[in-house]
């Protein structure tokens, strides 16, 4: 973590506030704290603030503000961050079928780490994760907090189609595909939960900063929950 956050130019309508050059809970927490503080203390000309692992992209309207003015406003809010604590994070449970056709790489993850498939499931569903950020594709969820024993490199060649709801591992991260896209993460399971729905506001089930736990379910439960989601129950 940097002693003082760095302000970077991101063109003429945005700036970046960078807190460090590492993926860590401490650095990511500071990103969410500033995002929340800006939401609570908006200034004229402030646009959306987009949190990522270690920085916040802050859009502003160059018709209202110069870069220096925008930076001054953000610095002012940064100074108030301690007075604006983050609300208690939500804990969201994600029902997930592990292994088999739902998680075709589960055995690879087990072998790679010298574990049994059962241990992979127990470790992955035993941890509590933090939503570091959503991005890349609509609703793709990057989670921090993967037990080190499960770290596994990406696929050498990405799959052409990863089904929506897939839960995967890439290096020391875990995450979820919210829509069906190509992807190279090692898939260990799938959730029937609707992670992204463009007709919903907000469109994602999860938000940056949320806490997440995976709850193992059976294939039968998966299908029942999928049917329920389809019929709107």
């Amino acid at each position, binding site marked *: 973590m940097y002693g003082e956050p760095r302000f970077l130019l991101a063109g003429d309508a945005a700036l970046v506030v*960078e807190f460090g050059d590492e993926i860590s809970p401490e650095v990511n927490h500071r990103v969410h704290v500033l995002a929340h503080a800006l939401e609570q203390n908006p200034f004229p000309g402030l646009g959306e603030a987009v949190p990522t692992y270690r920085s916040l*992209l802050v859009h502003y309207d160059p018709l209202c503000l110069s870069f220096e003015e925008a930076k001054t406003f953000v610095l002012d809010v940064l100074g108030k961050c301690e007075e604006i604590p983050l609300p208690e994070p939500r804990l969201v449970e994600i029902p997930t079928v592990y292994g088999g056709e739902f998680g075709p790489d589960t055995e690879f993850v087990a072998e790679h780490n010298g574990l049994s498939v059962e241990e992979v499931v127990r470790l992955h569903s035993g941890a509590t994760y933090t939503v570091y950020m959503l991005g890349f594709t609509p609703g793709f969820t990057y989670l921090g907090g993967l037990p080190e024993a499960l770290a596994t490199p990406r696929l050498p060649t990405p799959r052409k189609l990863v089904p929506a709801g897939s839960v995967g591992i890439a290096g020391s991260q875990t995450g979820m595909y919210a829509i069906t896209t190509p992807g190279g993460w090692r898939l260990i399971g799938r959730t029937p939960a609707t992670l992204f729905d463009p007709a919903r506001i907000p469109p994602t089930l999860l938000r940056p900063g949320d806490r997440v736990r995976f709850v193992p379910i059976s294939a039968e439960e998966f299908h029942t929950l999928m049917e329920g989601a389809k019929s709107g129950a």
Partner: protein
Amino acid sequence: MLTTVQDLGRYGYERYGVPVSGAMDQFALRAANLLVGNPPHAAALEITLAGPTLRATDKCLIAVTGADLSLRVNDWEMPPWMAIFVRQGWTITFGDRKSGCRAYLAVAGGIDVMPIMGSRSTYLSGGFGGVEGRALRQGDVIPVGVVPFHLPERAGRSFPSNLVPDYSDAPEIHVVLGPQDDYFTDEGMATFLSGEYQVGPTSDRMGYRLQGPEIAHKGRADIISDGIPLGAVQVPANRQPIVMMADRQTTGGYPKIATVISADIPLLAQCLPGQSTVRFEAIGVEEAQSRYRRMMKALEEVR
């Protein structure tokens, strides 16, 4: 043929991974809306290179701006950047490209498709916005909003010719350096700012993939993923720049050497994939912002 419904974009959802989308050339969209009496954020058709044939199911007032694709109304050649009264049953067609890449057809009342997350813009890869999240196809009926004025009153109104951009096939594009210009060697920076880059044939609404002199990184060609603003120039390990455009992903892990200034995005958006070439020049952020303010003020004065 690629024609989609676009407005100024879908703002406020990048934190959920939802791309902004919207018109690639927002100056042309704003001008078209202005000519037909619409608010700037009204949705219009973005027409890429080959235009569709449209038939007016009711009288309407249209304006076509941006690329010059040889507009014809009821088989009469008509000038672009002008409000045109169209009678019921008349056809609107396009022919050869004379300049630019994307034309904007605004219609008084705006294209009235269902807004998704506050915007009517089509996001093709996500399959939402616009008409069922897809490009227009034969047989589509395009809904138009209610018009609060008498249509013929505004017909014939033209955009001042001195304000119509000159869409070059070899524009000089201005950039503000950063946010990761420190990832590149001095030589890499000099190459980026002196080389000529061709707009690659696979360039699209998501990104303009450029081909030209290789830009050298100091070390790693990846960063911890962060947010991507419009116009960000990513340089992945293959050392060829990609300018991130309207449908860009919200986050990415390649270092961004510079960001194209807001005032020049329209010029880049009108470059033809596989044909146009661009050169980059770095300017300060204050200068970039004053260029954007000048551009917006010009539109304001036309109003």
